[in-house]
């Protein structure tokens, strides 16, 4: 079922909640426990804007188990505006539309379906920035 494993990551997965260092202002994602010697309260929860640019991308055509219904799908490294880089799928994006440096924004989508007795895992993907 993996219930607790996905539940405890919900803030990061659903709204891209990372952490900001109260002293230096550094933003990190994903959130992590304090390093040895670091005070726990140094890092406060911080919701990232969800905007960034594609650092690189590829198309998965030989999927791992659990993703057989999805290929071909775009995966990318996205450099977020606040500095951290994340790995995620690109969505609402044609295969030939993806490009390095393309502006993207985060959306919440289904990541995978763990089957009849499991969860449907939701989380962040990125789509080409919608002009407003």
């Amino acid at each position, binding site marked *: 079922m993996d219930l607790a*494993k996905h539940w405890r*990551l919900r803030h990061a997965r659903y709204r891209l909640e990372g952490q900001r260092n109260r002293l230096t202002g550094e933003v990190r994602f*994903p959130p992590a426990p304090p390093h040895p010697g670091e005070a726990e309260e140094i890092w406060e929860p911080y919701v990232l804007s969800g905007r960034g640019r594609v*650092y*690189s*991308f*590829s*198309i*998965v*055509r*030989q*999927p*791992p*188990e*659990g*993703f*057989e219904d*999805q290929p071909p*799908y775009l*995966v*990318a*490294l996205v450099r977020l505006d606040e500095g*951290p*880089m*994340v*790995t*995620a*799928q690109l969505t609402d994006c044609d295969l030939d539309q993806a490009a*390095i440096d393309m502006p993207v924004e985060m959306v919440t989508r289904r*990541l*995978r379906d763990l089957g009849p007795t499991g969860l449907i*895992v939701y*989380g962040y*993907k990125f789509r080409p920035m919608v002009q407003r």
Partner: protein
Amino acid sequence: MRHVYIIGTGATPVGEHWDRSAASLAVEALNSALGTIPAARLGALYVASALSASLHAQSQIGALIATAAGIPGIEAVTIEAGGASGGVALRQACMAVASGAVDLAAVVGVEKVTDVLDARREAALALATDADWEAIHGVTLTALWALLMRRYMHEYGYAADDFAPFPINAHANGVANPHAMYRFAITADKVRGAPMVAEPLGLLDCSTAADGAAAVVIASEGLARELCAHPVRIAGSAVATDTLALHSRSNPLWLAAAAQTTTTALRSAHLTHGDVQVFDVTDPHGIAAALALESSGFAERGTAVALAREGAITPKGRLPLATGGGCKARGDTVGANGVYQIVELVAQLRGQAGVAQVDGARVALAQCMGGIGATVATHILTLD
């Protein structure tokens, strides 16, 4: 610390061994490495395997293989560090012998991957990525290398075709390796025309995961002189880690653990970069070999692909690579790759590498990595 020597090597052919178990492959390789040395003389057995627990629902394969080899009771342990498992296991054996804790140790790398279908194998390989922040997005190891390849092309102005010399060299060399899975040459046209696996990586720039086992026997100096006419010294040995997730690194195109282990291993061998005459690195794709060479200090950033194009990675070049066929032509035995590397480089140093022989090779470097370099093991082999 005492000097450490390789006194025996053995390997099974790499391929689809439908009729063989992991234990049967491992014992064949071990027996071949031991030769006339009784297995009972071994003080410790280090078994490297990346996927046994996940694909075969079997842990403790150290005990399994010790039993199959007829030496139950021996100190045996399983080492898992993804594609670095073989090198990390060798490092444990080196430390055991160098410290004086044991005089004779064996390292066996074994992988049995063809018992399951492709999707399950891809998922097992993807266990080497970060489960919560990479694998959950459907990213495979191949896709992560593809992301790096595209970025590398973008930063340094290469085309996908420029990476073709890596698989072409691997296949040309694999012809001479009796253990290699693919013993035939390929052309640039074939590489270019291959279907895509994960753009910009095509099928002929992707290794094939396959079954196989390789073994080496490690001895102290005294025993090495007694038991072996042509021992090869392990002059440098190092393991280091990097962030598990690729996206956590300040420069994803830099494999910090490759850099660190190469520096450490060369320093302990009292050698410099220019002394190394033959290489084997984790090279499931050309981009992996390129980044390994650059991060390890054997090529400037952005130049390894150009060097390959100029022929530097062939047995006659300055940086001979994959002389046993590499992951691409030997076949990718994942956790056993690091041990196959040693078997092939020992053959190089003994002048037994056939048409892939590097003339006069006396110093070799073996480097294997888990995931995208999250664990890296680097060893320097020398003739005394």
